[in-house]
């Protein structure tokens, strides 16, 4: 896929996502992740961080992209936004993990143009945070993440309104990001 086509595709997915299209958003995140993983691995290797941390970094960056997606202006191209976002968060995350890092924006742009289909998903910081969740938040998170249930299905299961499930989910994600920051 050409860079331009990919960017158009990402923008279209993201626009739909902002309006509440969960499927489009999932496609967007799934499509961005391999690029992110390539960058994270490269940086971890370069700065002597254990390779096992790369996936934690990937998740942390994904979470930031998610919580800050409201800063993207849908009338502007998505590439400068996402590159800057990834660069800043990569630096942040690696630095917190004890490396002195400098990631040039050009490198991020270059890697965004590579198709890396490597699929490895490893253990996570996330789990530590999820252990601290109380019910019904824990069940909600478990159902949506591991089992891939939708908010609607989950709401039926825990006997809550969809709105309440959405709020619980959003709070869990915020809690996760707070934990990263206080590390």
């Amino acid at each position, binding site marked *: 896929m050409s860079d331009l086509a990919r960017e158009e595709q990402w923008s279209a997915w993201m626009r739909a*996502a*902002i*309006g*509440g*299209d*969960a*499927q*489009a*958003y*999932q496609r967007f*995140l*799934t499509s961005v*992740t391999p690029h992110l*993983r390539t960058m994270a691995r490269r940086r971890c290797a370069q700065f002597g961080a254990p390779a096992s941390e790369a*996936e934690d970094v*990937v*998740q942390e960056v*994904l*979470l*930031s992209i*998610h*919580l*800050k*997606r*409201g*800063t*993207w*202006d849908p009338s*502007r191209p998505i*590439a*400068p*936004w*996402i*590159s*800057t*976002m990834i660069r*800043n968060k990569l630096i942040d995350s690696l630095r917190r993990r004890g490396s002195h890092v400098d990631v040039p924006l050009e490198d991020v742009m270059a890697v965004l143009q590579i198709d890396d289909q490597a699929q490895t*998903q*490893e253990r*996570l910081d*996330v*789990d530590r945070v*999820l252990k601290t969740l109380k019910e019904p938040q824990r069940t909600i*998170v478990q159902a*949506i*993440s*591991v089992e*891939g249930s*939708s*908010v609607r299905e989950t709401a039926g299961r825990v006997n809550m309104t969809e709105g309440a499930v*959405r709020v619980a*989910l*959003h709070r*869990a*994600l915020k809690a996760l*990001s707070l934990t990263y*920051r206080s590390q």
Partner: protein
Amino acid sequence: MKTDELINMLSEDSIVRFRLSHALTLAFVAAILLAGTLFFTVMGFRPDIEAALTSLRFVFKLVVTAVLFLVAANLMVRIGRPGAWVLPWELALLLVPVLMAVSVLAELVVLPAGDWAAQMIGHNAHECLSLIPLLSIGPLAAFILALRQGAPENPGRAGAVAGLAAGGIAAAFYASNCTDDSPLFVALWYTMAIVIVTGAGYLAGRRWLAW
């Protein structure tokens, strides 16, 4: 948790409830209402406002504070947006010291040297130093709150820009109350007051704008 599972979680939270641009629009409305209400209930225009509007010195005071506000506001709406081009607006901020310097030079030329000190000290230094920060508290709080929706690369700097914008609004309101119109007074006391607000913004940014 696997990354795919995290993505499942994120996608079910896809809808954006509150965009940065909406937050900033609300903050501007709140800032002007807060500063305006405080100004008109506690201070108000100077009694000779109509005559003052024909004085170049007075009008210049309004212009320079308005320019500060407008440029800082434009920078502020971009600084929380990753990938936005902020450099032109950062450079535009230099317009304010340049305007100040030109007006100070002009004042030094037209005023006899014996009057310089008296004009610079003026009559309202205390009011200036206390009322500008006071008027900027509401706007600064509104801006910092809105910028929490943003993703600034440097939280301290973003806070400082919010401080400049808040100081600009406050100074523009206060300027229409203050009877010291000499650029020498403005260059000294207004600058000092705005530096205080900017410093407060910087600290607030470091504290509340990290993400």
